[in-house]
């Protein structure tokens, strides 16, 4: 079994009564790209802050390359690189000056520093514009410099916190390629947080899904998608009740059926009464064993039972649907 570069054990972070991260545990293997997928405010950045030694956890502990992050912070900081979600750069300095400055903070000097700065600038495709001030860059170019600054110290473990937010497609592809090459050619382990499921599906070997500070699923993207079975059907059925739900759940091509929480209810799963809310606007979520067959059977049942269908969504099996299935809400909510 490959050694873990990072182990998070029951991490908790509280701010007063607010629990930002709640009992999160996972491990990242050496050379792995691990994705933390969740909507904004789910606790991804706070988790990274604790793992990178920026914030002390309220409870739990984190080990990086065998070093305790809280007790051996200085050593841990030498072997990690952090590209924060915000563009943490100095706008009036050039791209090169920014990267060079961060390189100096890691103790790089002289020729080694100059060569490394050029190397990482080349890596993110910013050599040509390296001597321009950051304030003149596009959002995507700033993101690339942000990444370069995180790479300058040859990190063994790289934290990339939402590295493609506000980025044009060209820069996004460049960042994807850089991340893949870093991992493939240099064996850098990466913790990649995002709320874009396509990024997690494309880049990550394993994905942890985080919501409201809790890690609610962890597996490879393929296994997570497979957990959906044959896909998900969402059916808007006014006035549907428990008898309708149990009848649909009993159909041969259906694995399970449940009511989605009404909009704004803030619950991952809703019971029948709260789902309908007395307004007759229930949405029935149907997990199919085989989507086509399940769809035909459900439509046949509704026809037989003379149920009016207000809406029908056949959801593609992907991480977005996995998240929806687990939390009852969209990643971009």
């Amino acid at each position, binding site marked *: 079994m490959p050694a873990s570069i990072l182990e998070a054990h029951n991490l908790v972070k509280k701010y007063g009564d607010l629990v930002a991260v709640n009992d999160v545990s996972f491990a990242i293997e050496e050379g792995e790209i691990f994705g933390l997928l969740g909507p904004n405010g789910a606790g991804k950045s706070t988790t990274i802050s604790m793992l990178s030694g920026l914030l002390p956890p309220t409870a739990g502990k984190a080990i990086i390359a065998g070093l305790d992050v809280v007790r051996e912070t200085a050593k841990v900081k030498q072997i990690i690189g952090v590209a*924060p979600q915000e563009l943490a750069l100095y706008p*009036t*300095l050039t791209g090169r*000056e920014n990267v060079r*400055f961060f390189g100096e*903070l890691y*103790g790089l000097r002289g020729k080694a520093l100059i060569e490394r700065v050029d190397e990482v600038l080349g890596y993110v495709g910013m050599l040509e514009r390296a001597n321009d001030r950051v304030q003149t860059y596009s959002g995507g170019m700033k993101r690339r410099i942000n990444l370069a600054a995180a790479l300058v110290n040859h990190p063994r473990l790289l934290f990339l916190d939402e590295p493609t937010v506000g980025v044009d497609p060209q820069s996004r592809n460049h960042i994807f390629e850089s991340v893949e090459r870093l991992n493939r050619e240099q064996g850098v382990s990466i913790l990649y947080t995002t709320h874009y499921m396509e990024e997690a599906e494309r880049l990550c070997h394993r994905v942890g899904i985080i919501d409201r500070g809790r890690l609610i699923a962890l597996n490879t993207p393929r296994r997570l998608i497979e957990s959906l079975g044959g896909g998900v059907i969402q059916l808007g059925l006014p006035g549907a009740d428990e008898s309708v739900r149990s009848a649909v759940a009993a159909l041969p091509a259906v694995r399970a059926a449940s009511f989605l929480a009404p909009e704004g209810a803030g619950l991952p799963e809703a019971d029948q009464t709260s789902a309908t809310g007395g307004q007759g606007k229930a949405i029935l979520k149907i997990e199919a064993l085989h989507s086509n067959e399940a769809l035909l059977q459900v439509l046949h049942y509704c026809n037989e039972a003379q149920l009016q269908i207000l809406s029908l969504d056949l959801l593609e099996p992907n991480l977005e649907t996995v998240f929806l299935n687990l939390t009852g809400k969209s990643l971009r909510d």
Partner: protein
Amino acid sequence: MRILSILRKDLLILLRDRGEMASLFLMPLAFIVPIALVFPPDGYNLNADRKPALPVAMYDIVDGAVGAQAQELLDLLVQSYALEQNTPAEEAAQLGPAVQAACAKPGPACDEAAGREKVLRNWRTVALIVPEGFSAAIAASERISVTLLYNPARNPVERQLAEGVLTGATMRLSIEHQLINGLRQFGDLIALAPEEVRRNIDRSAEFEATPVDWSPALSVVSVQPTAALISVTPNTLQQTVPGYTVMFVYFMIGAVAASLKLERNTRALRRLMTTPVGRGELLAGKVLSALLVSVLQIGVLFAIGALFFGMTLGNAPGALALLTVTVALSAVCLGLAAAAYNFERGLTLVLIVAALLAGCMFPADWLPPVLRVVNVFLPQTWAMQGFQDLITRGMGLPEVLPEIAALLGFAILAFAAAVRKFNDEEWRR
């Protein structure tokens, strides 16, 4: 080494911030240069002998020369004032067409316009006009007036002083001549006296032949309350340059606060915390870079004052350098505290009022006693006092040690308050 990296980065950022550089370097010059140009170097009306200048327009000309009694008056006044009877050509050239026209025929009687202009333009507090027939009237013990022009906008004490000196001199002159006239009348009378009386009077005339000492029995001598001596007379710039330098060096508080705010807002500060750099190194680098710029700011402003406007820098360059660094350090540390406690709104107004109370724009001892108690709590007061001790009063290091200690106290307190806040996890989030 990391401190040097942070220092270099912060210096680059600060030097590239044109707005901040303008407020640190150009704004004080915008105050200093016009004042230096409007007020002549002897803005305190002091000449090289430390006597106030007194323009005199002389109309009492007898046979092409100043009348004897008028000359006696001038001889008395010259003990207290540097008389300006003639306007030198180069000075007249600067005074404008009115004065040049008045002085078109150089001579002792050409200066009324010059005197009026000097008073009107706020360059002199008073000017004296001696009228035609002055000597003849004094010789005949008749009543006559001299005119003292004064500028109501100037310091009233200077005017009262001039009135006192002039009253004393004219009174002495008047009494002297009345006495002589009395003696003459007495001589006419003694011709009628008996022989024995006339002999006794002749013998007393031997005493009369010895020179008369009209100097007062009591004299007042002014000395500075310090052992150190000023080699060059202080002028307006000795107040203006340190004043506006001190005022604007504390604008560094805003620059440091803005720099930290930028780092916090862009989350660069959070990123720095994920690198091996320590909080102490971060603060040290930031303090050093701002300190360098502040010292440079004081150096440049003092150099401009000295090179272009003849400001003196006192007799203790080492003490001046030490005080400069301490002043800059207190400004930088207060900047850290302002950043830590998010004090930015209204900061400029506070700094301007503080400069006013500290005596940066006018001497602090003009303030009412209540405000003089308040200004003890302002670093600008100690900075201003220290610079004036060294530059204006010619003191040395021992005399400015209290000011240096007070400024270090401000720096240490502000730094400690800032560090306490920076250690707060909430601040670094």
